[in-house]
């Protein structure tokens, strides 16, 4: 009977994929207390802060406005979830991930922050020990000086996840 178990074991190992398969999965998710996102749950989202001013106006739901001495700041929360494939051996190969962010276009006037990290066109590390399969809320803020002329402000934040 032992030889049959041997046959079964050989067949099973024969069918195993060569090398360890690992998968990294990313989602950008609407936070219940944050601004509404178009494309929430995907890897590309957008948010509209609508028409805001330092004094007066109404900010969208999920956004707070703080007025300082020479600028005002809009704050909201956006969630990020990075996970691994359900059947992966990533536990052995990686137990955490690094999340970095950068602006697509330089903005010398306004300050864009993700989790208190000031963003520029050079990638900055947001977390170097992200926990897999955990939807993590990140604060986002945009500080606009009073000197900024009225007009449209827009930019793209590029989030990157890499297994550690």
């Amino acid at each position: 009977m032992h030889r049959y178990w041997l046959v079964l074991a050989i067949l099973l190992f024969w069918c195993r994929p060569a090398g360890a398969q690992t998968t990294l999965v990313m989602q950008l998710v609407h936070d219940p207390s944050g601004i509404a996102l178009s494309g929430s749950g995907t890897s590309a989202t957008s948010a509209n802060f609508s028409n805001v001013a330092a004094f007066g106006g109404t900010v969208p739901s999920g956004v707070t406005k703080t007025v300082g001495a020479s600028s005002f700041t809009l704050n909201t929360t956006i969630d990020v979830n990075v996970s691994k494939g359900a059947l992966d051996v990533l536990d052995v190969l990686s137990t955490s991930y690094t999340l970095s962010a950068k602006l697509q276009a330089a903005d010398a006037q306004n300050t864009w922050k993700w989790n208190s990290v000031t963003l520029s066109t050079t990638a900055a590390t947001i977390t170097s020990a992200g926990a897999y399969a955990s939807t993590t809320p990140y604060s986002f803020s945009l500080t606009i000086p009073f000197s900024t002329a009225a007009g449209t402000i827009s930019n793209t934040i590029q989030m990157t996840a890499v297994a550690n």
Partner: protein
Amino acid sequence: MQRKWIVVALMFLATVVCNASAAQQDPPNPSVPKPAPPSIALSPAVIMLKAQPGASSTHELTITNLTYSRMSFALEALDVVIRDEKRVFVPAGETEGGIARSAIFDPSTIELNPGQAGQVRVTLTVPQQPTVRAVVALFHGQTGIPGNGSLMVTGSLGTLITYNLSSDVAVALDKPAVTLQTETSNLTVSQELRNTGTEPVVPHGTLAILDDQSGKLIGRVDIEPHRLLPGEKFNCAVEYPNSLKSGDYRAMISFEDEGGVRTNAIKFKVQ
């Protein structure tokens, strides 16, 4: 006759298991509704190589679009360098002795329909005098959500490719520290690890709590493996999940990697 049936049954069982395993690797079929939330996925996430200076290797990476939109990605290679004992991703060509500058992607951009998976081959060559031991092959998300949003966020995923070019593996352990348990928190033993060698290393370990008087093992906790690139530091904090009675204890924390086993110990008292 009975034996033949047993063989047939075993082969059938193995075939079923193999087919199930293979199905998990197939790209998703767009016609089958996916209950999982939309996402992008990259496989493999980590590749660990043993190589020599001058060696080239080619790897196939699979990106899967599990969203409801068509998505495009541009391929980019980044060197992983250590600055102030932390990882930094540096664009190709900025680091002397970097590997990323050698990257050739085929294709260099890729567009995927919803539910579609696509493969990209990356070929990397280790320079004769390499100064880095890791590269990221990045699928840089190019797709934005149409609309009048003032803030757009795009997601990108990267495969970490590490290189071991020699057997110079060394990890230094600092003195461990104990944070005693409270009514609301468990006992935690912290241990700083530093890769002082020239090659990547993935130490894993065990925390053992012993009775200091008798030496009896009270409990143990496995420590998950953690990759350290040369020059990188990691503060490993291990929580002991059980409550300890009053007494004198010794925490022994051991790490194992290709270079061997290293152990540290610290005594502590629970009031």
